[in-house]
């Protein structure tokens, strides 16, 4: 890893004067809040466009103030407390996910070292050696808000929704935690600013294609593509977004854990979903898409793209792009069934993750320990052959013995449903043909011989007239 001059290191954090800390916190807070307002607007607008509707366009220019109006309306609504609710838990549960999601914003690097009122400081609220773990801890704590909200309502649908949601989130939390491991392995650090620095600039490859040393892409989205894909999928599961929005599956659970909530508490749950989405997008941008660094074609002809305040722009662009993908997926994919969802999490994402981590570890160590080229290829080839052999020799599931239809029918136990005769052919009614031919000969020839059904329907109607 090489540090450039504008790269903040861990030593740069924790030295800000108090007013700067307050300023950063307030700005981070305002960023989170305005991203919620804009995010809801963005989502409704984009989904509308994808459904060929105009979308929000009544309040303010392009309907931008609609979210604000909805928020104010929500605050003025009556707050209902179910008789059976657990009052204290019912009160504080909605705040938990929102608060912890906002806390996770503090370790997101928005940019390099900048000068704010004459003080050189990183454009990041704070960074610690275990910053990514802070994000994980925050998302683990956020689950409490949902399971407790569902429990405290004292009602069936919220309880089921809360349980489902928490089981879903813990399942995908596992996949998410493990997919980060590959990033740590490559970057050698857990601090977010360190991970961004580790993705700086491609280095020339040690191998060559006919004398040409290609530049190895430095974004972990490309280098560690299995981790990237797993992380993105589990980010969808973790934020309860479509196609994994099972806890609020209206057809099954009314509104899930939010059923009994109204007024500002309902808004808080809604809001925390969007904060979580923004935080997840920022984390994906930071860990896999090079953070605040400008993407490749820009850096090729503009050397100043990664200094000063410009990186804020690249970072926001990446976040908005990821938010768009969140919305796009929601507009495209139908909701999964719960068993399919759990199967994906535990039987696909988790095992693939474990194998990938160990494989990556082995490869990297072989690279470090300077195996000569032939030995390395021998080992890799041996591993591939072993995997192929296992895959080939794996005892296949016992093939079902082929039975004909007659055998299957005679094997049915007595008392089964009667089957219609399989060779049943309904002969065409000669009378119907005659009627059609007599009355509307032009129609038959126009629609051709294949559309016999249409012709039959016509004749039915005609017969009634007769």
């Amino acid at each position, binding site marked *: 890893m090489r540090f450039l001059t504008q790269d903040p290191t861990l030593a740069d*954090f*924790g*030295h*800000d004067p*108090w007013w700067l800390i307050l300023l950063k*916190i307030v700005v981070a*807070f305002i960023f989170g809040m305005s991203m919620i307002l804009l995010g809801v607007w963005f989502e409704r607008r984009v989904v509308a466009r994808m459904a060929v509707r105009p979308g929000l366009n009544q309040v303010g220019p392009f309907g931008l103030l609609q979210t604000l109006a909805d928020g104010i309306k929500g*605050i*003025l609504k*009556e*707050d*209902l*407390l179910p*008789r*059976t609710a657990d009052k204290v838990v019912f*009160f504080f549960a909605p*705040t938990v996910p929102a*608060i912890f999601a906002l*806390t996770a914003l*503090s370790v997101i690097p928005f940019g390099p070292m900048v000068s704010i009122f004459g003080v050189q400081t990183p454009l990041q*609220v*704070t*960074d*610690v050696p275990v910053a990514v773990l*802070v994000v994980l801890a925050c998302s683990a704590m956020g689950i409490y808000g949902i399971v407790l909200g569902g429990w405290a*309502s*004292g*009602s*069936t649908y919220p*309880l089921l929704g809360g349980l489902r949601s928490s*089981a879903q989130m*813990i*399942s995908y*939390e*596992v996949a998410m*935690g*493990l997919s980060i*491991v*590959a990033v*740590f*392995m490559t970057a*050698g*650090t857990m601090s977010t600013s360190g991970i961004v620095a580790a993705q700086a600039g491609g280095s020339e490859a040690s191998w060559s294609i006919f004398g040409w040393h290609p530049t190895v892409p430095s974004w972990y989205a490309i280098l560690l593509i299995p981790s990237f894909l797993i992380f993105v999928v589990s980010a969808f599961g973790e934020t309860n977004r479509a196609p994994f929005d099972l806890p609020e599956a209206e057809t099954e659970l*009314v509104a899930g854990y939010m059923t*009994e909530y109204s*007024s*500002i508490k309902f808004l*808080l749950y809604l809001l925390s979903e969007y904060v979580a989405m923004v935080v997840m997008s920022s984390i994906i941008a930071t860990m896999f898409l090079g953070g605040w660094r400008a993407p490749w074609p820009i850096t090729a002809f503009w050397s100043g793209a990664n200094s000063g305040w410009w990186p804020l722009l690249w970072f926001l662009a990446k976040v908005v792009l990821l938010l768009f993908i969140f919305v796009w997926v929601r507009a495209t994919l139908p909701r999964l069934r719960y*068993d399919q969802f*759990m*199967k994906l999490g*535990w039987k696909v994402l*988790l095992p693939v993750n474990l194998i990938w*981590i*160990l494989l990556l*570890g082995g490869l*990297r*160590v072989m690279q*470090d*320990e300077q195996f000569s080229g032939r030995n390395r290829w021998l080992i890799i080839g041996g591993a591939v052959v072993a995997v192929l052999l296992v895959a080939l020799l794996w005892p296949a599931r016992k093939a079902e013995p082929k039975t004909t239809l007659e055998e299957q029918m005679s094997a049915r136990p007595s008392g089964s449903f009667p089957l219609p005769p399989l060779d049943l052919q309904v002969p065409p009614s000669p009378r119907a043909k005659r009627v059609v031919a007599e009355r509307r000969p032009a129609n038959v020839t126009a629609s051709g011989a294949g559309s016999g059904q249409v012709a039959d329907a016509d004749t039915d109607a005609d017969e009634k007239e007769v």
Partner: protein
Amino acid sequence: MGGYLGSYATLGLLLAVGVLFFLVAMTANRLLRTNRPSAAKSTTYECGLDPVGGDWAQAQIRYYVYAYLYVLFAVEAVFLFPWAVIFDDPGFGMTAVVEMGIFVGVLALGLLYAWRKRVLQWT
């Protein structure tokens, strides 16, 4: 504020600001909103029927198994994190990878067991 604690204090401060913000929002809501409680409003939602009793249904036991698997793999992840940071430092290398391979392999047996016993099949 010192360099070490300063970074974490900022985290705590943001948490405190978050709590404060939502307390203020809740108080504002309490002052602004209408409040006309009635017996019908305080019943729980039951698709148009009158709910009978307070419904604190019992959870299904399979959630417990999933929570246990979560504990298993959370612990594994916590062991994997420090390993990931140091495994290719000088002095570790292949030994560290093999050590972790054994650890992950043993835990993967648990997953395999659950798989074979159809615990992971949500029916």
